[in-house]
């Protein structure tokens, strides 16, 4: 009888062998490496660069607006009477290399940057826990100068270098650190440090497929006029097809790195906040080959 059982076992085992999924005979057992994408909806968290890159051939047309302090009250329509803006174009030269230019009305400042991704978060047989990118840029202000002789080009320039290290923890939460060094050739006051280091970060909490709450914060270290504060922003991302709308409350006026790291005034917690929005429209230049 016992022998019979063994006999039956083999019979059944053989049968189930044939009833197995056909695909099992050719499927790889190892999971494929999968690059993690979409930690942030946009290449900016709010003010700061995010770890996201533009895909090759994508042109991102960005219009950013910042209004006056909400605390200015009804006479200024809670800040809406005063608006500054930055208009910019970013372009993906390759999937890991983005360049961009922009011009802000604040101090009539031009800016340009390059950004490259060194490491992309990946899961699978190759496990990379972080995405790491570098951004470097330059700014020059062009507004009329009140003094006798307008400073030359070099004196009006500033430079920044930023490391972005972030992770998409899951589909709801992403976080990045974004330490930055900003060097201003001629700060507003001679007592201010030319080189300011700032430590900060930003994150995203997804609340639906197309909406997310974002925040970014940087704390500048160095000798600066006490009226300069830490740029702090909290906002909402709304993605609709080729557009991303970013609505936010921030204490920063500036929309390039020199301006918002070294020239933010107002205490966020005391109500010195401004309404603002970024509008990003993506264009695909040239077709992807497939």
């Amino acid at each position, binding site marked *: 009888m016992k022998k019979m059982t063994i006999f039956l076992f*083999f019979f059944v085992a053989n049968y189930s062998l044939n009833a197995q999924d056909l695909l099992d005979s*050719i499927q790889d057992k190892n999971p494929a490496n999968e690059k993690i*994408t979409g930690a942030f909806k946009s290449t900016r968290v709010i003010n700061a660069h995010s770890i996201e890159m533009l895909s090759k051939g994508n042109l991102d047309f960005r219009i950013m607006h910042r209004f006056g302090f909400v605390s200015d009250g009804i006479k200024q329509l809670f800040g809406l009477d005063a608006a500054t803006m930055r208009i910019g174009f970013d372009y993906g030269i390759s999937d890991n290399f983005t360049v961009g230019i922009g011009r802000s009305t604040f101090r009539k400042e031009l800016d340009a940057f390059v950004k490259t991704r060194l490491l992309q978060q990946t899961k699978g047989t190759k496990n990379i826990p972080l995405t790491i990118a570098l951004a470097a840029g330059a700014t020059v202000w062009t507004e009329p100068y009140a003094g006798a002789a307008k400073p030359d080009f070099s004196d009006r320039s500033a430079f920044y270098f930023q490391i972005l290290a972030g992770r998409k923890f899951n*589909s709801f939460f992403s976080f990045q650190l974004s330490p930055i060094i900003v060097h201003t050739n001629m700060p507003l006051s001679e007592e201010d440090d030319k080189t300011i280091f700032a430590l900060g970060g930003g994150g995203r909490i997804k609340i639906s497929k197309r909406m997310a709450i974002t925040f970014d914060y940087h704390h500048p270290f160095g000798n600066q006029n006490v009226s300069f504060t830490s740029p702090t922003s909290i906002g909402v991302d709304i993605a609709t097809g080729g557009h991303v709308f970013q609505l936010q409350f921030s204490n920063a006026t500036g929309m390039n790195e020199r301006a918002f790291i070294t020239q933010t005034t107002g205490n966020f917690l005391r109500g010195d906040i401004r309404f603002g929005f970024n509008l990003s429209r993506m264009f695909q230049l040239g077709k992807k080959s497939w």
Partner: protein
Amino acid sequence: MKYILLYIPFLILPFFSSGQLKLFTKTAVISFSSKSPLENIEARNKNVLSVWDVNTGRVEFSLLMREFEFKKALMQEHFNEDYVESDKYPKAFFKGVIDGGNTLSTEADGIYNVTINGTLTLHGVQRQISAPVTITIKNKTVSAKSEFTVALADFNIKIPAIVANNISKQIKVQVYIAEYKPLANR
């Protein structure tokens, strides 16, 4: 001891019985397209796995959703992040049977128009589908193609109102297999 000898045929038998002809490919191409008043969307996946058990007429497909390539990078991102949720549902499957498939022979040249019925698993939803298939056999080279339509709503893929005019509710799917190769027995 002599009983052990009795079992041996049963151990060996399946290996012979799987000497039945199975064909496979790892490079089947599945593409889909959406035509709408505002824009056309096309995507293609060139790394689709498929196995066809010729004796029984059973056919299976498997693919990674992230391997669909779009002409626009942003479409690809939205496809994976917002519509099919590739993190949650990384693969799609089809398991079906060709009608009268067990009578097909891959020895005889010819063009066979058949119907396949089976279950498509996509976005975590299983649906019965039926599709016409054209199998072409020429000098023992087996190729096949098929075309069918799926409704996004059937697979619980929601289109927000704001892009309702950009994405068709009915998606045309095309399957093309350039060559089914014999699967070595194991």
